[in-house]
């Protein structure tokens, strides 16, 4: 597994007495799209939040692009976070800044780009998601789906090598879900490495290279979508799919 972009070994996270992520192993290669599904409270969010150190793991290792990050080594995780973009359920744009300011803030403040370069990059990215004309708008002037598309390109402006999505369409009106999923599909087609927690089974079927079923803080089963959806091996996977697909 030396060519894995992300390699997770025995990852654990506990909150007090309660272990929420209970030993996860996962390898993701460059360009792969992994979709994580599982019941509510199974630790999906906690798991992907550990991958960019929004939560500090209580045990195990995360290796991104050959750099090992041991549990508790916050400094190293911070450095790696720069390679990992994340999009949340509640499109967290900064409300007091225009779309353009949202997108250029981090690249400029972290010294990654000059302002002019950052603005040019931002406009190109906005073009890709059909929102170039909204560059001067404020988040409150955009629909939920538009805000979420901006949140995606804001993360892309940092040129991440890995993108994490935590239920990016769950808070959206049904009619805007499609626009956001299309942006993600496009991103996958362009070869971005992605880990996506979602309830959108259609997206998983169409885009995922691998679907991971999560339960009780563990990977129960991982397989390509056709295999996992059509012939799940584990009883718990079968049960879960029977519930969500009907």
């Amino acid at each position, binding site marked *: 597994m030396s060519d894995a972009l992300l390699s997770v070994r025995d990852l654990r996270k506990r909150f007090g007495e309660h272990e929420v992520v209970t030993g996860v192993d996962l390898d993701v290669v460059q360009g792969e799209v992994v979709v994580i599904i599982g019941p509510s409270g199974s630790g999906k969010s906690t798991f992907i939040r550990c991958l960019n150190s929004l939560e500090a793991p209580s045990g195990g290792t995360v290796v991104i692009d050959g750099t090992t990050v041991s549990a508790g080594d916050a400094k190293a995780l911070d450095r790696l976070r720069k390679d990992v973009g994340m999009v949340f359920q509640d499109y967290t744009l*900064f409300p007091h800044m225009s779309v353009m300011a949202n997108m250029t803030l981090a690249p400029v403040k972290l010294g990654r780009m000059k302002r002019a370069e950052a603005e040019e990059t931002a406009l190109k990215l906005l073009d890709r998601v059909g929102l170039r004309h909204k560059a001067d708008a404020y988040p409150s*002037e955009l629909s939920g789906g538009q805000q979420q598309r901006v949140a995606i390109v804001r993360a892309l402006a940092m040129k991440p090598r890995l993108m994490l999505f935590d239920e990016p369409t769950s808070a959206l009106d049904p009619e805007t879900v499609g626009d956001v999923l299309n942006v993600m599909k496009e991103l996958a087609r362009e070869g971005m490495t992605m880990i996506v927690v979602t309830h959108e089974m259609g997206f998983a079927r169409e885009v995922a290279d691998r679907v991971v079923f999560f339960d009780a803080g563990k990977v129960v089963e991982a397989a390509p979508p056709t295999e996992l959806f059509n012939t799940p091996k584990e009883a718990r996977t079968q049960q879960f799919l029977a519930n969500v697909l009907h």
Partner: protein
Amino acid sequence: MDFDVNYLIEQWPALLDGVLMTLQVSLLAIGFSLLIGVVGGAIRLFRLPLLSQIVVLYVELIRNTPILVQLFFIFYGLPAVGLGLSLYWSGVLCLSLWAGAYQIENIRGGLATVERGMLEASRALSLRPTQYFCLIALPIAVRTSLPASLNTAISLLKNSSYLQAIGLAELTFVAVDRIATDFRAIEMFSAICVIYLSLVAVLALLTGRLSAYLQRPFQHQ
């Protein structure tokens, strides 16, 4: 009743000096107290060990003791341990520390309304905690805490009249000083009431404008 307007016209230059002193000391202290509020608010937000406890202690101390005692402590107490300040700076320090405690609470209240998602988004973008505070949290928090902060500023202006107790030549001191020689209490106190009312009105007007500007909806142009 005999109300001598000519007396007031005569005394106007002295009153004006008092007004200028009151304004100077108050504006400086408003600035310092906001600074204390922002720094103290940040310390509380990030729960910095030790410093956080010191801030809590400071706020409680100020809010639960009379301002006059605080003033005497600074002006008569501190010189005893070699930290004597001039009359002027004792006054500024007293008002700054007094209002600073309230500004910490005001700004903390505003910071508490900033959604947790803002911090997470900042961290996911690798912004540092200080960048999060200055660029994201504070600008959002100011909108909510502004009315309370302005009230504190107005209270500070009114409380500057306590400084007459240490002999700083601000407006109240000038009035009391004149009454001691001229015995024109009704004229003097009427005059400074009107002056304080006007100062507060001007401050309220300015800050009303400022808050309308700062609280305009998040929209372009």
